[in-house]
């Protein structure tokens, strides 16, 4: 300190132009620093996990699964029989994907996925859930009035279509296999995957029609 003649450099004095962390920032920093110093977590591990979920895991994975099922009838049979193994065939495994169930939309049956407890969601195939999936409105209304929820997403089903709502848990997570759109007969798997939106794999919309803007 002998080289300094600025009295505001002393520890214990607030800077007039000092920085501030918000309450949640302070709580996260406290957890991370304390657990790191105790040797319970490694900051490099945290960075790796965040980077993985921000950039490498997302609904494009699920779209590949759906496109394969549309293109390959034998794969579709395996997917509906044992989704965890069929999804792992394409290399998509990991946390929140240990026990997957695929449910198929047909002209007679429409499937919708929710987690009423919190936001259990099939991370390896869909990434992290969208904000609306975590909302109280969706979690409560999807069970009470699934047709109303679907209507808000622009999907109106006829009265003859049965709506099945699947409540995800920490043990089982669901992937909706949307109906293959009409007019997609000649498309290869890459082109088919482009028709598969995240929302169609949650069951709140249909897959896109070829030529429709994504």
């Amino acid at each position, binding site marked *: 300190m002998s080289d300094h003649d600025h009295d505001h450099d002393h520890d214990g004095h607030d800077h007039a132009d000092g920085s501030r962390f918000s309450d*949640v*920032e302070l709580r*996260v920093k*406290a*957890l991370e620093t*304390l657990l790191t110093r105790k040797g319970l977590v490694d900051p490099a591990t945290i960075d790796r996990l965040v980077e993985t979920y921000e950039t490498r895991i997302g609904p494009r994975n699920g779209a590949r699964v759906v496109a394969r099922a549309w293109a390959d009838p034998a794969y579709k049979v395996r997917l509906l029989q044992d989704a965890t193994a069929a999804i792992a065939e394409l290399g998509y495994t990991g946390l929140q994907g240990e026990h997957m169930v695929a449910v198929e939309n047909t002209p007679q049956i429409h499937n919708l996925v929710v987690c009423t407890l919190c936001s*259990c969601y099939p991370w390896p195939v869909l990434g*992290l859930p*969208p904000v609306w999936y975590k*909302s109280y409105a969706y979690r409560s209304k999807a069970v009470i009035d699934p047709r109303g929820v679907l209507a808000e997403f622009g999907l109106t089903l006829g009265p003859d279509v049965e709506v099945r709502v699947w409540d995800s848990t920490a043990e089982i997570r669901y992937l909706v296999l949307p109906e293959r759109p009409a007019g997609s007969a000649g498309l290869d798997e890459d082109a088919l995957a482009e028709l598969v939106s995240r929302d169609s794999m949650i069951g709140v919309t249909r897959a896109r029609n070829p030529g429709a803007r994504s």
Partner: protein
Amino acid sequence: MNPPDLQRSPGLHIDEGGPVFRAPWEAHAFGLALALYERGAFTWQEWAATLGAEIAAATEVTSDGRDDGSRYYEHWLAALERLVTDKRLATARELLAYRQAWDHAARSTPHGKPIVLAEDRRDD
């Protein structure tokens, strides 16, 4: 297809294409929970039950539907603090001491300079 008219359902809105995390602290809270799970600090069932309880408690407070999902990582953080203390990985007193230390470090650091926590700072 028209964009969904989600305004009719209070609190229900869409973030298609939006960022996974809206702030760095959300990403860090996310990564912390996964890192602790990976080393076996708790099971995923324990995590889901704790997070669900935090969300349910918050939902009671905002039964008018204002829990629109945007506060999800606040619930996540609360669940993380609860499990860390329940599992005796850290005490509430230790966490408070580190919060105060970071707050102090920030306030005594001018803008534009990195905020560092003194290596020897202890809570005892």
